């Protein structure tokens, strides 16, 4: 028996660790009657410091400045509310955080990303949550490259009380995923969570390998219903390039933002959403098995501005 899962912790509770260091200056803007150049600089610093990126930050601020000039935003409070709303809007414009699942089919969720972002750990957590929601889960240890990756996945499988299909270390990951889909169909598992080796999006042959994995997984009886890009919240501007390349290669359907419980803000997902229309679906906010929760744009945006650097 699985121990009972607690209510998923809210992003904000976890991020509350840094809340007490909330920059007083940004909060101060809210009470200001007129908006000064220093205020703009502080907002810019907050966005840049959260890894939102120069282009996205500039676009957001240009639009807000125009609205201030046009008289649409009359004071600091209106400005901060508009900024918050703009960010939330762009973060939800690409769709919600639901994970796609076709009842009665052998669903395959593929987890992709560069090295060290937390793919294996994410799968372990997703497995547990999906079992809890009544799905019959099978894991595919498609990372045949990293030493002991399958062992690591096996430990997560044991915790979630699900089986894992493994191949030989250094073996063909497509074959592992193929076997897993076949076995899932034969045994009536309705969800295969497929791990893949971390790979830099610049490695042509490894990206080709990933395309093959996806093709194999999508062959009947399997059907790929999610391709989740796992992205580390500490990632800077390269995150956008990663998302673009993985989207192009394997049709990423959503982002899992991990390690959001640290000091990093993960603001690059704002750019990813604006530029590529990829929604964030899950966020990782801790090491525990339950610390992977659905993305909540409002909580995320509020956390972006906490502990913001001061302009100067």
């Amino acid at each position, binding site marked *: 028996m699985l121990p009972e899962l607690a209510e998923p912790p809210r992003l904000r509770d976890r991020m509350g*660790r*840094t809340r007490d260091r909330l920059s007083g200056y940004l909060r101060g803007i809210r009470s200001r009657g007129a908006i000064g150049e220093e205020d703009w600089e502080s907002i810019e*610093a907050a966005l*840049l*410091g*959260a*890894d939102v*990126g*120069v*282009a996205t930050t500039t676009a957001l601020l240009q639009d807000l400045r125009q609205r201030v000039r046009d008289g649409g935003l009359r004071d600091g409070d209106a400005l901060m509310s508009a900024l918050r709303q703009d960010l939330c809007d762009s973060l939800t414009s690409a769709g919600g955080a639901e994970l796609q699942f076709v009842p009665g089919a052998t669903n395959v969720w593929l987890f992709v990303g*560069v*090295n*060290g*972002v*937390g793919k294996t750990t994410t799968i372990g957590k997703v497995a547990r949550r999906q079992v809890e929601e009544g799905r019959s889960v099978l894991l595919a240890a498609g990372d045949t*490259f*990293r*030493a*002991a*990756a399958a*062992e*690591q996945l*096996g*430990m*997560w499988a044991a915790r979630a009380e699900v089986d894992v299909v493994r191949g030989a*270390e250094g073996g063909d990951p497509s074959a592992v995923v193929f076997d897993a889909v076949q076995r899932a169909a034969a045994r009536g598992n309705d969800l295969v969570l497929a791990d893949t080796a971390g790979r*830099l*999006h*610049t*490695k*042509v042959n490894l*990206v080709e390998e990933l395309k093959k994995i996806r093709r194999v997984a999508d062959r009947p009886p399997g059907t790929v219903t999610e391709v989740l890009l796992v992205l*580390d*919240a*500490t*990632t*800077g*501007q*390269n*995150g*956008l*390039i990663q998302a*673009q*390349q993985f989207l*192009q*290669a394997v049709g990423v359907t959503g982002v899992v933002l991990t*390690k959001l*419980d*640290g*000091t*990093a*803000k993960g*603001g*690059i997902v704002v750019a990813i959403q604006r530029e590529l229309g990829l929604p964030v679906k899950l966020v990782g906010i801790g*090491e525990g098995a339950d610390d992977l929760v659905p993305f909540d744009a409002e909580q995320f945006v509020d956390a972006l501005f906490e502990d913001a*650097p001061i302009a*100067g």
Partner: protein
Amino acid sequence: MFESLSERLEGIFGRLRGRGRLSDADLDEALAEIRSALLEADVNLAVVRSFIDGIRAALVGEELSRSLSPGQQVIKAVNQQLIRVLGGEPLRIVHASVPPTVVLLAGLQGSGKTTTSAKLARWFRQQGRQPLLVGADLQRPAAVEQLRVLGRQAEVPVFSEATDPVAVAGAARGEAQRLGRDVVIVDTAGRLTIDAALMDEVRRVSEVVRPDYTFLVIDAMTGQDAVATAEAFHTTLDLDGVILTKLDGDARGGAALSVKGVVGRPIAFASTGERLADFDQFHPDRMANRILGMGDMLSLIEQAEREFDRDVATQGASRLLEGRFTLQDFLAQLQQVKKLGSIGGLLSLLPGVPKELKQANAVVDDRDVARVEAIIRSMTPAERDDPTIVDGARRLRIARGSGTSTQDVNQLLRQFRDAQQLMRSPGMLAGMLGGGGGARGARAARALAGMTGELEGVGGAGGFDLGELGSGMGSLGGVPAARSSAKGGKGKKKKGGRVTPKGGH
């Protein structure tokens, strides 16, 4: 995705040529661009500010150089400042008088500590040392198992116990002495800096193992948070240096600058690939170029120097100038370039490659090049000299011989014809010779490049661009500042220029 700083500055300063001095307004505009470029490279905001102040101080009132364009002059100053900040005193490992020398690695989750431990062990072994790997990451499932596998690959023993990290670390020295090992490398669990309990644990690990060197392992893709992370680890562990990982991607790696700026300790090593051998001491000058988006020219030049055959390149150039560039010449040039390694890898090293090409560099397929080669090789010498004699029957034979279709053959021939026509137009030659890669030259080059790319249907963007390699290498000559610190830069530049048909200068 990001325009290189050099391109942008050339844009700003293009109109200033001929003026004697940088005005304050010019400088402000340039500094704003530098700021954007550094931020896009993930340099921390606070570090950018102080860096910009340094640049301003260096440039204010400076005489404009006769030999450099204003843009180049600014880049030179930026580059020198970058190298100064990134470089400083390089780290030299001084081994403990009583062995073992103990090295402790720490960092966030997923930064690459375990792999780096094994790479470092291999590096020490190559220095004639006898390292011992110690697995003190008892947190992540199977981390010790991963270390054992990597240890076998590196032919280095691994010590760990299923106790707790502090106990394992405490036993490490004794184990090294028992096994007669003179270097101990301690791998620790990844941890968040705000996790007080785990930060305290790593401090205690450090206390019992008494490291001679403590390195922070940090991912080159890290964004603004690099500073907070480095500060926290430095406060807890008093770092001796930094190891930068995953430099084989296309991240600009501004985190290097941030961390160096905050910790003030050298970046000791850089990890540039998945194999254990892909690890070396850090080169500040190369990192500076990378952050500026100028590519790793030095590596490319070294590679080119090793691999290129001067005569073949010169011959190609002269035939191009004479308008007698045949498919045979094209094949010879293709061979040359292939020696440099994969096309994708090559593109990533090059500055001045158009954005669409850079973005496509992950999808560039060396098989396209192989296909073009196969087609040309399936032609007779007469056909290579004069493709107009290729009729239907010959086309079929060539397609069969090369394992392609007649459409592929047609396409190559058509594109070669177009490229030839472009090359024959007088303006084209001027463009190619005029330096700076004129638009017409680039267009002809692209037409040539299309011959490889469009076979796969990925368009010129996916193809290998022989001519762009040319303008890339050529622009090296135009950006002397970028490498002014490199020894013998001038000679290398000339050699670099030889890479291409146009490079006969």
